[in-house]
């Protein structure tokens, strides 16, 4: 274990950023936090989490896939892939670190998504334990420990120092480059960990009962009458899907100017009216079916395909940001109650 004084954080970031891009959470002009590229003068946010999740690092909102140039009857393929460059993301919370496992199971199984895979290979994840969880946090319901996030390196922050623990080869390699870090005693952070776990114990949804969900529950839940009331005032805005660290749906579209074609992908949302639109029609004609999809995917379909693992990490973003305050906790509680 290593450490560095909080007052020296800037030199740590400078050292990491010496040979790669470094993203850290900083406060925007409205006081919310966002992952931004570190530069001299950047100040680490003290908010519990960022508005957008860390998935943006591997799965950006818009990304070029390839281009085509048409001359007469010739079609030429143009490579538009970003060059592979290594980067680091600092300050990833335990929930977001877990979300990478969930995304990996989608993007890294055959056929492998090479765009995602390339970024995933090139990243060094530096996680940060959560000093002050929010009431909307319920990571513990999914067995995530906010006091011990995973990642290539795990960090803890106490009043005076940032503690640094490499977990993987990548993490060790980075640590070896950072002469600003000094040796520290593992025992130094026990108190901090205990404090985080004590708060986590008190989280209102930390022990959410998930027994109504999981593998094989489709038949029981699909036609439940509660979906209608739950989705009744949903605006279909898609905010919940865009800020969610585990939402992974995208659309592939093309810009075509008659001579060149740019093929790109962009985030899509199951909450949108054209998401499943096909020439034959729309199998999810109203917001109720769209809404149901989002939660069934997280809580039943994904577990069905992934040994029971839920595709929610309890980050609480959808609890904070839904304009009508409808969210996965309300769904879990309402359905759970109806099952009893």
């Amino acid at each position, binding site marked *: 274990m290593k450490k560095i004084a909080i007052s020296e954080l800037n030199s740590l970031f400078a050292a990491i950023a010496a040979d790669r891009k470094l993203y850290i959470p900083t406060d925007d002009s409205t006081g919310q936090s966002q992952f931004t590229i570190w530069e001299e003068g950047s100040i680490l946010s003290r908010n*519990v989490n960022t*508005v957008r999740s860390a998935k943006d690092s591997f799965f950006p909102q818009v990304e070029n896939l390839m281009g085509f140039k048409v001359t007469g009857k010739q079609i030429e393929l143009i490579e538009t892939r970003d060059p592979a460059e290594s980067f680091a993301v600092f300050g990833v919370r335990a929930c977001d670190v877990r979300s990478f496992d969930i995304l990996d199971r989608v993007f890294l199984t055959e056929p492998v998504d090479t765009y995602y895979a390339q970024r995933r290979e090139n990243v060094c994840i530096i996680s940060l334990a959560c000093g002050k*969880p929010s*009431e909307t946090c319920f990571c513990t319901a999914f067995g995530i420990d906010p006091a011990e996030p995973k990642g290539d390196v795990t960090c803890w922050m106490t009043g005076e120092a940032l503690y640094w623990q490499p977990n993987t080869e990548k993490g060790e390699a980075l640590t070896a480059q950072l002469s600003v870090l000094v040796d520290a005693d593992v025992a130094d952070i026990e108190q901090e960990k205990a404090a985080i776990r004590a708060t986590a114990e008190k989280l*209102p949804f930390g022990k959410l009962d998930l027994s109504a969900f999981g593998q094989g529950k489709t038949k029981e839940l699909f036609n439940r009458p509660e979906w209608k009331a739950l989705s009744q005032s949903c605006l279909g*805005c898609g905010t919940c899907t865009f*800020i969610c660290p585990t939402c992974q749906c995208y659309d592939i579209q093309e810009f075509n100017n008659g001579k060149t074609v740019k093929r790109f992908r962009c985030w899509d949302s199951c909450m949108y009216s054209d998401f499943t639109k096909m020439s034959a029609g729309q199998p999810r004609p109203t917001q109720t079916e769209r809404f149901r999809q989002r939660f069934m995917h997280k809580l039943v379909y994904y577990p069905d395909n992934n040994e029971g693992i839920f595709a929610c990490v309890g980050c609480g973003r959808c609890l904070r940001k839904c304009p009508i305050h*409808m969210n996965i906790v309300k769904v879990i*509680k309402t359905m759970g109650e109806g099952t009893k």
Partner: protein
Amino acid sequence: MQRVKEKAIELLRSGEVSRVLGWKTGEFFYDLTPAVFESVEEVEKGFVFSLFSGANLSKYLIAESKKEGKIAVFLKPCDSFSFVQLQKEHRIKRENIYAVGIQCDGMCDGESLRSAGCEGMTGVEDGESLTVHTLYGDQVIEKKEALLGKCQTCKSKRIVDFDELIGQQGEDVPSDRFAEVAKLEAMTPEERFAFWRTELSRCIRCNACRNVCPACSCEKCVFDNPVSGVQNKAVADSFEENMFHIIRAFHVTARCTDCGECSRVCPQNIPLHLLNRKFIKDINELYGDYQAGADFDSRPPLMDFRMDDPEPSVIYTRGGAAK
């Protein structure tokens, strides 16, 4: 505030209405959800009107008023402006609605408390000031610091249209809602451009602003329509997103009541209201004071023609608006 719930029960019980549009309790004290209640039991179990009933329910009436039977709706003063504007645009069926106006002293929400410095919130006591219970101890904050942005610059306490009132009818109140617009106007074009580029760069194009907006009532937005040729799930460049907001602001000009919902729901805290208010301010200066949703008779300036209508470009090159 209990009277609002009692009224909902009374209206359902007497058969005056068959449904009630209101706010439903959440898991926290602040996360109320707009909901339709169909029985006295449902109201008793879940209806609440509190400091956190900020959501404007008017837009739901577009769909709800077209259904069978009469629906009661609860409207704060600002919501009633949207309600009237929607009627002027023939978007709702007034005869199917029983409107209850509610006096309002300003609303808060979880995010506005968070901006005021609260985290880990588990409860609140509403008094002179707010005592917020958190996982980390109690915090006392001034109510006005915790108010929603739209409430900090409230333009009117008047409920424009209602069948019944709870509390006092109010009046238009002096508000400095154009102060920030004036600040932007005083900037150089370069500074202003930089300001908007920074603010709008955070947009994730979730469309919450558009979907919540009572003035955005098209059945299918052109930007959602795959055959429109301008559907844009992705942007060609970083300016396109910015354009969307400018175009949307134009589209709702003179119909936007300044209800403030767009800025309230934006997950990225983008000050969208400043775009709308710039248009409202310009209209006031060019065509005389106009407030969308304030009455039933006035003609919206951009849908009206008068021989003495000013020519904006001429006015501004001559140095200032005619008034």
